[in-house]
């Protein structure tokens, strides 16, 4: 408070006529000291204005103001300002009348007036001040009482004051709702009688604890008839009494249960989902990795490692920067992941930045999907499509070539026989010429002999006869080759109209293997390891061709190596049942298949053999035939360690038709 502010403010009402005014009044009041502000008014309106400010502690009204004096006192009293009446001439009756009108005190302007008035005023000021303070305190108490009553009545928590033996002294409406009784009906009743049975035991425990003077709870009680959940507490009050609080927490309980459920669902989802889930901190280090991620990354405990260690190439690194530093969301970007063992895999990434409650970045979550299998599938589909179109082309070509090749080949064969016959004739003609000799018997014979000799020399007839035979034999060989190509093409492309039958794969493989082994003159070690196989629904002739092609291939592979390195060739046959499939593996210890060849090995017309030795259709046909059965053909060939061709055939034909080529 500033020092200029007065401590007390006193109003003085003096007569309007200046000669009526008594300077002793002001002198007396100035004894109140510097802290007192004295304000003098002479008429009613000015007084009212000042009273309206409600800042004055006391009003002194002089009797000389006249008839107005008492009503002015009344007005001051009405405004809460205590009035002191200054009696000049009036007697006790005037004092009584003043008290009637609301004056708090009367001072007679006698000889000691100047010392009495400030004392009377101060006394009034003290009284009004303490009165005001009490009023203010009362109002505050009143307000607090109202507030607590409102709160107690409005809050959903059931409140009850219990006495030392557990009777309810007072209760709020929430308590009566809980018990199903009115507030009035609850008063004085034992708690046990009022509470639902399901709450009693817990309520009793917390009440007894509070009755011993300790705070008790929170304790949970489950399920009244409606399946609600409650939180019960009690607090000790004075004189052995306790306050019992019962809050319904069904919703909170439900929320907690839902949160728990969500958490478990999330965990299950993340732990078991097919994809890999990674959470990174803002520096790109792994905070969490699900089992899918461990598998994909080839790392049993990736937590704490820098994600950059796995990322190969700029795309992946740029992506990390985009998500972690620029807060971008990423979907379906393909990157390459390199595992600690050096293997790498194409991976599709979806990533989103994470934020804390304040919105600051705190890392990212990423979902990775291994694309290796998908890529493999894509390659297979492409391969199948390629096979299909090549198959159609091959079928057309084979058919168109069939007829002309038919007569070219047959004619060449006939011509070769003709040439043999004509060569014999030619030998006899030469014998005839020799018999005629140098001196023919007749001139006609001589001329004919000379012409013959000249022509033989001119056309080099002996060479022609020789070379004609050679030319025809070579052409025949060429047409024979074309005939085989056409046959291969036909096998590659032909549509099977025969019915599927159930066949014993082991038996078919074994008989084919024995034929090939015989052809190899038993020079290769043949190991057979046949598992128990269910009968397979198939086109047996087509599968025989599959086994034949694989076995011939294996044979050629080991022959090549045996020739080069002189080691003993070995072909291993292994069959087994696996799920709804049978698997046949043909393994050789030949020279193996380099990776660049492996890529193209099933392509039609791709061959590594010498011209004329292979058409490049063997494995393509094999592939097509296996696919026609809804199966798969794959090859594994560790560098320089031979090769394993694996055929997987479904026991039952696939529904809706196999991916057939024409």
């Amino acid at each position, binding site marked *: 408070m500033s020092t200029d502010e007065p401590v007390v403010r006193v109003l003085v009402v003096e007569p309007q006529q200046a000669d009526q005014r008594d300077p002793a009044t002001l002198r007396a009041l100035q004894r109140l000291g510097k802290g007192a502000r004295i304000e003098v008014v002479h008429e009613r309106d000015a007084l009212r204005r000042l009273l309206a400010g409600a800042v004055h502690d006391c009003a002194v009204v002089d009797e000389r103001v006249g008839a107005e004096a008492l009503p002015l006192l009344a007005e001051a009293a009405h405004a809460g300002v205590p009035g002191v009446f200054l009696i000049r001439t009036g007697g006790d009756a005037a004092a009584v009348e003043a008290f009637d009108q609301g004056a708090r005190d009367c001072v007679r302007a006698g000889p000691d007036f100047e010392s009495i008035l400030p004392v009377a005023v101060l006394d009034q000021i003290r009284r009004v001040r303490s009165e005001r303070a009490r009023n203010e305190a009362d109002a505050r108490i009143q307000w607090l009482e109202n507030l607590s009553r409102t709160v107690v009545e409005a809050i959903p928590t059931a409140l009850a004051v219990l006495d030392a033996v557990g009777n309810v002294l007072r209760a709020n409406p929430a308590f009566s709702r809980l018990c199903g009784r009115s507030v009035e009906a609850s008063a004085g009743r034992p708690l046990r009688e009022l509470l639902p049975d399901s709450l009693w035991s817990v309520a009793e425990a917390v009440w007894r604890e509070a009755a011993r003077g300790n705070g008790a709870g929170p304790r949970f009680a489950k399920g009244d008839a409606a399946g609600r959940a409650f939180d019960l507490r009690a607090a000790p009050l004075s004189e052995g009494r306790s306050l019992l609080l019962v809050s319904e927490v069904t919703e909170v309980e439900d929320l907690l249960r839902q949160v728990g459920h969500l958490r478990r669902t999330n965990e299950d989802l993340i732990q078991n989902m097919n994809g890999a889930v990674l959470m990174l901190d803002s520096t790109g280090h792994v905070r969490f990795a699900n089992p899918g991620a461990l598998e994909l990354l080839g790392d049993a405990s990736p937590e704490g490692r820098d994600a950059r260690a796995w990322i190969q190439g700029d795309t992946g690194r740029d992506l990390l920067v985009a998500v972690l530093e620029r807060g971008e969301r990423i979907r379906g970007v393909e990157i390459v992941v390199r595992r600690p063992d050096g293997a790498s895999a194409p991976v599709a990434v979806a990533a989103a930045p994470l934020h804390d409650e304040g919105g600051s970045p705190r890392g990212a979550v990423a979902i990775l999907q291994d694309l290796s299998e998908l890529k493999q599938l894509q390659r297979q589909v492409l391969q199948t499509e390629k096979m299909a179109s090549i198959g159609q082309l091959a079928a057309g070509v084979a058919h168109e070539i069939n*007829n002309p090749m038919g*007569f070219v*080949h*047959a004619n060449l064969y*006939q011509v070769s026989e003709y040439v043999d016959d004509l060569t014999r004739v030619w030998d006899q003609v030469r014998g005839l010429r020799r018999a005629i000799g140098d001196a023919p018997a007749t001139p006609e014979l001589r001329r004919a002999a000379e012409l013959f000799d000249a022509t033989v020399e001119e056309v080099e007839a002996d060479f022609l006869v020789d070379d004609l035979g050679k030319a025809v034999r070579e052409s025949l060989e060429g*047409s024979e080759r074309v005939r085989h190509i*056409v046959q291969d093409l036909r096998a590659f492309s032909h*549509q099977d109209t025969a*019915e599927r039958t159930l066949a014993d794969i082991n038996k078919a493989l074994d008989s084919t293997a024995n034929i090939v082994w015989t052809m190899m003159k038993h020079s290769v070690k043949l190991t057979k390891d046949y598992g128990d196989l269910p009968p397979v629904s198939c086109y047996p002739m087509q599968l025989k061709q599959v086994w034949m092609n694989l076995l011939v291939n294996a044979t050629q592979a080991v022959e090549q190596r045996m020739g080069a390195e002189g080691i003993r060739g070995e072909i291993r046959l292994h069959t087994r049942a696996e799920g709804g499939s049978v698997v046949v593996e043909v393994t050789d210890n030949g020279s193996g298949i380099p990776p660049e060849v492996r890529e193209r090995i099933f392509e039609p017309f791709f061959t590594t053999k010498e011209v004329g030795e292979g058409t490049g259709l063997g494995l393509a046909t094999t592939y097509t035939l296996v696919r026609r059965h809804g199966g798969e053909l794959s090859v594994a060939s560790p560098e320089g360690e031979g090769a394993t061709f694996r055929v997987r055939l479904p026991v039952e034909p696939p529904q809706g038709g196999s991916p057939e080529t024409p």
Partner: protein
Amino acid sequence: MSEGPRVLLVDDEPRILSALQRSLRREPVSVETAGSAAEALAALDRNAREDADPIRLVVSDQKMPGCSGIELIGEIAARHPSVRRILLTGWPESIDEPERVRLGLSALVSKPWDDQELKREIRAALDLV
């Protein structure tokens, strides 16, 4: 043309007929030709009606415009069951065992044919071995 059992060759491609005739020139058979299934059936019908020397064997191509070799052979099996039947086809695998039995084929020879094999099959069909 040699003397011997009568054989009818059926193909819509004259060069095939000519090549087949060359193949069989030295065989103990008497060869005649037809350029279509209709022509072949007409020849067989006429032969059965008018001729004392029956046609013993038909060697037919499969793929011909109009009536195919299989249809022709089916027809022959119905009308002239005693005539032996050989089918020349680019797609031997397309004819399964039951179909062969139904058609009563003596042989199924793939095309382009192997001369020796064809002659062997023809002789066998005519019981000339």
